[in-house]
């Protein structure tokens, strides 16, 4: 992602300037005068991060650093994302999450693009993410960049409400042996073994293996759910310097998990019934990626990335396989003294199969489908003056469902002073429809029908337009005092062609000799929405040993069916994401070897789902016993015994209680 690099560099320049300015308000003359011996006696108070980058200047970006990750005590990506403002993370069951940015939360939220090292982990069939397959050892994550707002110009379709960019460490940074073992009160165990070393004289590699098991949680009724799960994974990464200007990275992973869930199954009867049944969820997935980067003497660069990823999964009555091959080329060049141009080409081919796992549950028109996606983008950052820059660009793509689409954006950044900048952006993004939108046919729910007992709602896909977003944002970020920084964003988002479920005329079908009332529903694109909101985050370094940060997110959604729509419940989806989220985090170094972290987060009620607002308190105490060994104890959800975070109304998985738990973890590097 050279675009990211380029823009990152731009922001980095500003940020470094802030940072340096903040930390050294005067030239440290005392250091200039110090002798070698005196220099060697100086105690280093704040160790600089090796890399600190923000993705884009004219966008709302929150970076979760390796230090944040290590100190959070979180053992999975969803829990890490809870610290980012504007992100809604809700756990449904021990292996199921609803995660989105700026609303439209769902078990398979489809408006956020998730990437690992530039590889998309979005599942084409239903445009969502299997979060349980996103299992990267936290020790190997360099940082997570959470970009709120559309990223279609650079990342393409599906980067509608935001982008979550997980960047893993270069193999050069993970040399040595690493063993971690953790165990928790809910019988959650996890072990990681990793070895990293030199790959010849010009590079480095790492290889790792991980095993975990997680116990089942409880249903609202108090009885145990069937969501216990376990998994094993292995992976490697190698980074090589081919010449002074070329680098090559190759990485791959394979994982297999098996578990289950208490999910709803619909039996046609007649009479039709919806039953909570315990179903297996078995998944295995793998990927292999190579990335070559060439840097020219003048600082411009070219990259080529190729990967293949595959998943096989059985879940709630569906057996799904998906295999994607993807090639991306990017070039970044300076044109004249005012223009920085990034352009790229990409091609992706995906082969999907879906088949019913049980005879009555689910069907698709074609058992196998191959989709191609071709795209090109160009973006130019134009320096309009000493302190103002304008970035304009667009993605152009051709997808198998809606044909040609374009996703333009413009960002204006005013570097107001050395320590503060103001930005404005306007963009269009789309969510490319998927196979579920167009081709599926499955029993969706059972509704009581007076005089008939019950009717079965059967949903069918149909051709319709891509969901579209036009988004306007205004942001401000500043280092208001040497130790205090603030980042504020407001947004106004207009959505069109949002997916609706249009009821058709009920009919009676004979099943054997008994009549079954079928209420057909067809996916369409007849809703629109106007959302607005704001996110405010601030960091205060109270002292060298104590950092405090806080965030507030407001989200106001108003979703309406179009005049020709008969979807009577679409307006209620505004209730699937909390209106307010408030959080505070404290990172305190009790001594050189002991860290204590705590975070508290309030999430307001999900009115439609009857989920009450809750407060979550997480804490971690870490002790570096020596340079090789670290022991940590973490507590999660300490405020209340148990709470619920999300009810999957659309109905696949039953929600389970999120309970209080404690972990102990031992990390050994040698």
């Amino acid at each position, binding site marked *: 992602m050279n675009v990211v690099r380029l823009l990152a560099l731009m922001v*980095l320049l500003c940020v*470094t*300037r802030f*940072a*340096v*300015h903040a*930390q*050294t*308000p*005067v*030239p*440290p*003359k*005392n*250091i*200039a005068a*110090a*002798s*070698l*011996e*005196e*220099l*060697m*006696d*100086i*105690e*280093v*108070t*704040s*160790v*600089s991060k*090796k*890399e600190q980058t923000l993705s884009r200047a004219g966008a709302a970006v929150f970076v979760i650093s390796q230090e944040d990750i290590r100190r959070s005590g979180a053992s999975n990506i969803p829990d890490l994302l809870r610290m980012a403002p504007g992100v809604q993370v809700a756990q449904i069951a021990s292996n199921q999450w609803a995660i989105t940015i700026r609303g439209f939360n769902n078990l398979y939220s489809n408006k956020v693009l998730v990437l690992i090292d530039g590889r998309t982990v979005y599942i084409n069939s239903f445009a969502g993410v299997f979060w349980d397959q996103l299992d990267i050892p936290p020790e190997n994550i360099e940082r997570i960049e959470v970009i709120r707002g559309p990223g279609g110009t650079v990342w393409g379709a599906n980067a509608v409400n935001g982008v979550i960019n997980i960047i893993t460490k*270069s193999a*050069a940074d993970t*040399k040595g042996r690493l063993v971690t073992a953790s165990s928790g009160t809910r019988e959650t165990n996890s072990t990681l073994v990793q070895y990293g070393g*030199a790959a010849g*004289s*010009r*590079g480095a590699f790492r290889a790792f293996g991980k095993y975990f098991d997680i116990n089942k949680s409880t249903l609202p009724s108090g009885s145990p759910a069937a969501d216990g799960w376990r998994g094993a994974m292995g992976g490697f990464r190698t*980074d*090589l*310097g081919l*010449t*002074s*200007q070329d*680098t090559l990275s190759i990485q791959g992973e394979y994982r297999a998990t098996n578990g289950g869930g208490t999910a709803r199954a619909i039996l046609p009867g007649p009479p039709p019934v919806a039953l909570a049944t315990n179903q297996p969820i078995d998944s295995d997935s793998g990927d292999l990626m190579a990335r070559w980067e060439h840097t020219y*003497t*003048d*600082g411009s660069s070219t990259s080529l990335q190729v990967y293949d990823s595959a998943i096989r999964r059985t879940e709630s009555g569906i057996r799904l396989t998906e295999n994607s091959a993807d090639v991306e080329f990017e070039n970044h060049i300076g044109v004249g003294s005012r223009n920085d141009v990034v352009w790229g080409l990409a091609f992706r081919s995906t082969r999907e199969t879906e088949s019913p796992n049980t005879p009555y549950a689910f069907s698709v028109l074609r058992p196998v489908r191959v989709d191609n996606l071709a795209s090109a983008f160009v973006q130019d950052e134009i320096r309009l003056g000493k302190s103002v820059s304008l970035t304009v660009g667009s993605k152009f793509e051709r997808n198998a469902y809606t044909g040609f689409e374009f996703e333009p954006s413009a960002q204006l950044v005013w570097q107001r002073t050395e320590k503060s900048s103001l930005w404005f952006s306007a963009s269009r993004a789309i969510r490319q429809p998927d196979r579920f939108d167009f081709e599926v046919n499955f029993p969706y729910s059972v509704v009581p029908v007076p005089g008939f007992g019950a009717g079965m709602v059967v949903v069918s896909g149909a051709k319709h337009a891509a969901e579209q977003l036009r988004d306007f944002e205004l942001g401000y970020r500043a280092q208001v005092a*040497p130790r205090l920084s603030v980042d504020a964003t407001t947004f106004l988002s207009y959505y069109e062609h949002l997916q609706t479920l249009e009821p058709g005329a009920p009919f009676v079908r004979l099943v054997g000799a008994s009549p079954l009332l079928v209420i057909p529903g067809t996916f369409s694109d007849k809703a629109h929405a106007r959302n607005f909101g704001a996110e405010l985050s601030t960091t205060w370094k109270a002292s060298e040993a104590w950092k405090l940060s806080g965030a507030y997110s407001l989200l106001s959604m108003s979703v309406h069916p179009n005049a020709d729509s008969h979807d009577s419940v679409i307006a209620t989806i505004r209730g699937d994401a909390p209106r307010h989220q408030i959080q505070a985090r404290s990172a305190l170094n009790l001594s*050189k070897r002991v860290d204590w972290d705590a975070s508290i987060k309030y999430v307001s009620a999900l009115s439609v789902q009857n989920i009450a607002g809750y407060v979550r308190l997480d804490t971690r105490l870490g002790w570096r016993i020596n340079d090789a060994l670290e022991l940590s104890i973490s507590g999660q959800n300490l405020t209340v015994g148990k709470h619920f975070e999300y009810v999957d109304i659309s109905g696949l998985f039953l929600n389970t209680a999120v309970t209080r738990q404690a972990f102990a973890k031992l990390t050994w590097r040698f």
Partner: protein
Amino acid sequence: MRARLHIGILGGLLLLGLPADLRPLEQADEYEVKAGFLVNFPSFVEWPADSFPSPTAPVNICVLGRNPFGKTLESLAGGKAVGARTLRVRQLSDVRQATGCDILFVSSSERLRFRFILDAVKDAPVFTVGDSSDFIAQGGVANLWMEKGKIRVEINAEAAKAKNLRISSRLMAVAKPERP
């Protein structure tokens, strides 16, 4: 004595209307200290006579790759001189621009390219400095590393000799290998 000096500096800064850095000398940020080493090295390294065009030509300190110092290195170098020579800081994006560099700091952002970079300046009288664990092994002359929160310097005497650089015994005396 030290307290009075501090008050003096503080007073001067207040007069200039600048915020004062109140931290004692015993504490500083990582790259402030590392920049301190870089501007101190010229006093302890002797380059071959023909590496400078004139007796008053400045000592060039070059930074290759991502610059972790911000403006600190330049401001430190600005107030410093070694004999008749001043110090000058240059930012490079490619090792081929290193002609004329007397000290070359190779940023950790370049770690995959260390071998190529160091090979390119192998026979040149350039005092190469890094702050990555494999910098010496790849052929670098000096490496800055951290031990219990303090910066240490490791010197590769063989590499320095091959480059016709003479390192003062005072620098050699404080140098310490990263893994003893």
